[in-house]
Every structure is written in C-alpha cells, then in structure tokens.
C-alpha cells in the first residue's frame, strides 16, 4: 500500500472538485459544458454520475483524467493535480468503446500500460494473465480482439484499467454498448472486482438501476449548463447479491433517483 495507515488513506479524498467550470469554444459560440461542480469522493467509494446526454458527464470524467483542463476551479486526485495523478498512474480508465488495439492479443492488451511503464516481461505476463482470469477470460488470453464478443472486449478493457492496481477507476458508460443480459452479468462482476481491489470508482451511466445497484452514492446531473442537481445515497454495503435487484429498498432508491433526474416526484406525475 502506498499509504502508511488506514486513517491516512481515509483522510485524503480520491477526488476533490471545487467550483469546476468547463466552457468549450469562444464567446458567441461558447458552450457551457460544466458549471459550479463541487464533488468529493472518498477513497474506496463507488460513485455514479447519471444524467441526460450532454449534461457533461464525459467532460467531468475527462477533467478528472487530465485529458482536458477545466476553465475554472480546481480538481485534485488523492491530493495531487490531475496531471500528477495521470503521470503517477493513480487512475485506470475505461470508455464506452473497449478501445483495444486490434493487433494485440487479450493479454498483450491488458499488459499495454505495464509495458509502457517498463514492467519486466515476466512480471507483466504474470499480472496480465491473473487479470484475464479475474475477468473470466482465461480461455481467451491469446486471442485477438476481433475474435471476442462485445462483452468480452469490455472485460478486457476493464482488466486493462486495473492493470496498474490504480486507487481510482474512471469508467465512462463502460456497459453502454452491451445488451441487457450481458450488462447485468457485467455489473455483478464489476461489483465483485472493485470490492476486491478497494479502488474508488467514478462510473458514468444512463441506467438508473445500474447506478443504484453498483454505487454508494448516485450523483444526478442536468444539462445546459452541466451541473449537479442532486446526490442520492445508496448505502447497501459492499456485498451486493443479485437478489438486491428484487428488494423494495432497491426499488425505493431507483424511484428516488428517477425523481431527482426528472425534477418532480414520479407518483404525483402519474396521478395527474
């Protein structure tokens, strides 16, 4: 572990965003993508960002990852600047597209970040194989991506994001392109994997049940300009069995998030 004590680990938040603004373009053509974003995510916490298209979820993710710079405000990742965090491999990232390199096999794709950082061949082979097993691709280690299904490719991308054992995982709609059944299975696997790794997660999704099933907190956003309108706690604990999806407490949280998203209590909207 990089920190001396558990208390120190808990003290520094994984993500701290204060007064973050992001505007694309200049003057007349300016688009306010994010406005007044304040967000703090504790180490080990799983937070989902949910909201309609164009509300700035991906933009916020890219600011955390130092793939883009905020127009105003500050972002800290474990107390460091996003740039330091990026260069120090504090985070792993996965997008909606798996983004695998087609000329590399499964293990070679997983090992790519390790290779770039000079990890020895033996060690990266060992780690990549372990990760491939963890995401259930033990039988596909030497296959090229074009021989994998969409769900398998996404699992490779997740394994690759975990390769450096990051303390923060950034995931932008990683299951967005998957069918519903694959998606639910992947959610279960992600919950298990993240539970094992103890990493904090920022998870962008369009699916309310997905957000509630996976998260400790759901951050609800709205567009033009992109801002945070509500935060819903979903404290179902670390272990989340599939049966959670059937429980009334789960449905209650789904409803709460839906109401926060639409800005009106849903029941009342139905009564009218």
């Amino acid at each position: 572990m990089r920190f001396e004590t558990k208390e120190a680990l808990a003290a520094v938040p994984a993500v701290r965003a204060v007064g973050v603004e992001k505007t694309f373009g200049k003057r007349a053509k300016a688009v306010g993508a994010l406005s007044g974003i304040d967000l703090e995510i504790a180490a080990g916490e799983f937070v989902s960002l949910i909201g309609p298209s164009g509300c700035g979820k991906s933009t916020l993710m890219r600011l955390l990852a130092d793939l883009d710079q905020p127009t105003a405000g500050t972002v800290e990742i474990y107390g460091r600047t996003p740039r330091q965090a990026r260069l120090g491999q504090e985070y792993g990232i996965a997008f909606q597209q798996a983004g695998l390199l087609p000329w590399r096999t499964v293990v070679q794709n997983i090992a790519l970040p390790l290779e770039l950082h000079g990890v020895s061949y033996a060690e990266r082979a060992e780690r990549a194989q372990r990760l491939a097993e963890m995401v259930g691709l033990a039988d596909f280690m030497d296959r090229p991506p074009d021989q994998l299904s969409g769900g398998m490719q996404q699992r490779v991308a997740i394994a690759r994001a975990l390769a450096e054992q990051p303390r923060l995982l950034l995931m932008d709609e990683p299951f967005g392109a998957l069918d519903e059944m694959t998606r639910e299975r992947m959610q279960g696997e992600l919950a298990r994997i993240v539970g094992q790794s103890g990493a904090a997660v920022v998870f962008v999704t369009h699916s309310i049940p997905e957000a509630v099933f996976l998260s400790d907190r759901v951050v609800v956003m709205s567009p033009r300009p992109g801002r945070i309108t509500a935060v819903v706690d979903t404290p179902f604990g670390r272990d989340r069995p599939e049966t959670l999806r059937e429980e009334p407490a789960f449905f209650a949280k789904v409803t709460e998030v839906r109401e926060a998203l639409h800005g009106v209590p849903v029941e009342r909207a139905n009564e009218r």
Partner: protein
Amino acid sequence: MRRALPWILGALGVVAVAALWELYKWLGPADGVVLGATAGQAGSGFRILPRTGDLNMPHVWDMFERLAAGNGPGTPPLWLSVLAAMGVTLGCAALGLALGLVVGFALALLMQRSRIVEWGVLPWVIVSQTVPLIAFAPIIARIGSQIDRGGFPWPGWLSVAVIASYLAFFPVAVGALRGLRSPDAIHVDLLRSYGAGYGQTLRKLRLPASVPYLLPALRLAAASAVVGAVVAEVSIGMPGGLGRMIIQFAQSASADPALPYGPVFGAVVVGLLAAGSVALLGLVLRNYRRGEAVA
C-alpha cells in the same frame, strides 16, 4: 485452395494475354487497322492496331526461343545479359525505393506532428508529382555531375536511384500520413492517460496502426521505383540496365524482331519481384492488418 486461387488466376491471365496476341496475329489483317487514312497516301491516318507480320508481332514462342540464343556464335545467351541488366535495374530501383521510403516517411512524421508543416509541405509533395520525369531526370544527372566535379564521385546509378526515389516517395508520404493519423481518439486518449510521450505513442500506436495504409502505398511505391529506374536509365543514358537495353535492342528490331522482348520480359519480372516482396512483407505484418475490433 483459397490461397492458390489468386496464383491460378494470375497465371491464367498471363496465358490469356499470350493467347490474345497469337489470336490477333493469326486472324488480324496483315496491314493492321488504320483509321482515317487517305487512299494511296502511305503513312496517313492513325494505326489503332499493329501489323500482324512476324516483323511487327513476333510469335510468343519466338520471343522465348530468342532468349535462349546468343548474339552470334560463342556469345552468351540473351537471357544471361537480360539477367545482368535486371540486376542493375533492380538494384537502382531498390535503392530508390529505400530512399523514397526514408524521405516519404520523414515527411509524413513531420506533417503528422504539425498541421502548419502539413499545410506548408503537402501542396509541394503533390505538385512534385506533376513535374514530368523526362524533364526532371537530366537536371538530377547534371546536379550529380556538378557534385562529381566538386570532388565526390557521383556515379550514374545514384542519379537513377534518386530519380526512382522521386516517384517512390510520394505514395509513401501520403499513405504514411493517413496511417499515422488513423488511430481513433479513444486510443490516443488512452495512451495519454498512461502518460505515454510522443515516442511511445508512435511506437505502440501510430506505427502499428499505419501498417494497413503503408502496405498498399509501398506496393505502389515499389512499382513506381521500377518504372522510374527504367525511364531514368534511358533519359540519362546509363548503360548496363534494362532501360538502355530496351532502346538498344529496339534499334535492331527490324533485323531481329524478337530481340527487344527479352528486356521487356526482364522489366516485367523485376516489377513482379518488387510487388512480390511487398506481398511478402504484408504476410510478415499480417497481424497488424486486422480490422478494428467490432464492439
């Protein structure tokens, strides 16, 4: 079977061309086909199909027989001198291709790095190809001879190679630029998220991603280098290669009509060798030719 099919079709194509040649020679009018000729005026009008006599169209088998014979008693057979000339031309073309590859790739790297450079350079790259080789070759030879007088020996084959490279660099520059630009934004972002610098991004992403664009460019460049070498040999008058041999032999064609076809076949074989080596390279690099993964 799937693998063999292109070869079989290729061989059939060669046979078909030879058959067509012989068929026309057999059935076509002895004086060829001339359009718009004035009656009684020799040499008027446009000849759109050649005369079919042995002088103008030797039999295919005569061409091959001629390859086996020497230029008189005690001289080596024609195919040996053709082979030697092929070696010279192939050497010049290969050197030209290598030069073109280096120059084309360097230009592509610069243009990929900076849009400003692309705007400044790309128009010139394209304009360069509109300058006819015939006009360009003597200039190279003259520059070469000036360098020669300056104390550095500048052999004729170097001029030929430079002229060949002038044709070869163009497809490489254009193809490599497209290839280096081909990675998706997501891949570039990913490499950036790993803190990879320019060199690492180039080696791990841009170079491998450019292979599918580079291979067709290389095939074109190889063929251009061969054509460029042959034309350059003729235009600067370098002896020893296929270009001069074709011109020389054409002059004695009236006495020995099958003779010029020897070096012509030689040029075809050199072209095939060039294309074949690119195909071989493609086989070696086949892993990099996989389509983008479908999600």
